[in-house]
């Protein structure tokens, strides 16, 4: 699961990382946005159902939908 800040929402961490990269001499960095990445192991074997379950988890807990978006990839 990727949880990222909605476009337009201030990302203080990304801003600070960008500054730090510049201080380290990395040039050409035009923007940094920081998000969360979660790996969830599920008992569920049906990918469809697993995805639906995780989407529900995102809405209820994993993402703060006021300011964040989420995207789900189902692996194996």
């Amino acid at each position, binding site marked *: 699961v990727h949880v990222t800040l909605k476009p337009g929402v201030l990302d203080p*961490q990304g801003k600070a990382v960008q500054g730090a990269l510049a201080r380290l001499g990395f040039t050409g960095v035009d923007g940094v946005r920081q998000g969360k990445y979660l790996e969830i192991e599920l008992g569920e074997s049906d990918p469809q159902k697993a995805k639906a379950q995780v989407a529900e988890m995102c809405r209820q807990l994993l993402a703060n939908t006021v300011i964040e978006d989420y995207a789900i990839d189902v692996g194996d």
Partner: protein
Amino acid sequence: MKAAVIVFPGSNCDRDVAVALERVTGFPAKMVWHAETDLAGFDLIVVPGGFAYGDYLRCGAMAAHSPVMREVVSRAQAGAMVLGICNGFQVLTEAGLLPGALMRNAELRFVCRDVTLRVETSDSPFTRRYGQGEVIRIPIAHNEGNYFADEDTLDRLFAEDRVAFRYCSPAGEADGAANPNGSQRNIAGILNERRNVLGLMPHPERMAEPALGGTDGRGLFESLVAALP
């Protein structure tokens, strides 16, 4: 004793530690801005607590790459004392001066309160004024104080007597109930191999005068006066 306190953008215990240093040792400390690159002549370098660079990305990560930190590393290699408190401890691990890493507290909450610590070794320039095994009360205030290192590293730290402080009960038991943040083996502070670098999560500078609730933190600064010219 010539002491420097490094100031990063976001440091916030820089003044506190300078005040405690002067109060206990009588020596004023010099505040050094992170952009400076010359620390020659200082025999004690303090990396203070706070939120350097907001603790964004990882605590201490961005500060560890400040110009001044290269100089801190080289002064440490030259034998100067380096003390990292709280955020300073995180910076020292990120800079590779101390092993391991400080992760999010097990309870995932910031915790600010007095804890009791056991002095695991009085054989260091930072702890010689404490008794071996003495139990002292010092405040902590952090969100990422959960000390992690792999088992080999932990074994080595103990084998080499490099664990300076462990969280313990008032009776001196370093058990799970006395562990405020999930640190492996209740570790609160560690030394480098040469014993001239100490990193610890608790704030001795906040317990250096009776009005603040106690004086158990003074021993650390008194030890340094005794150890330094």
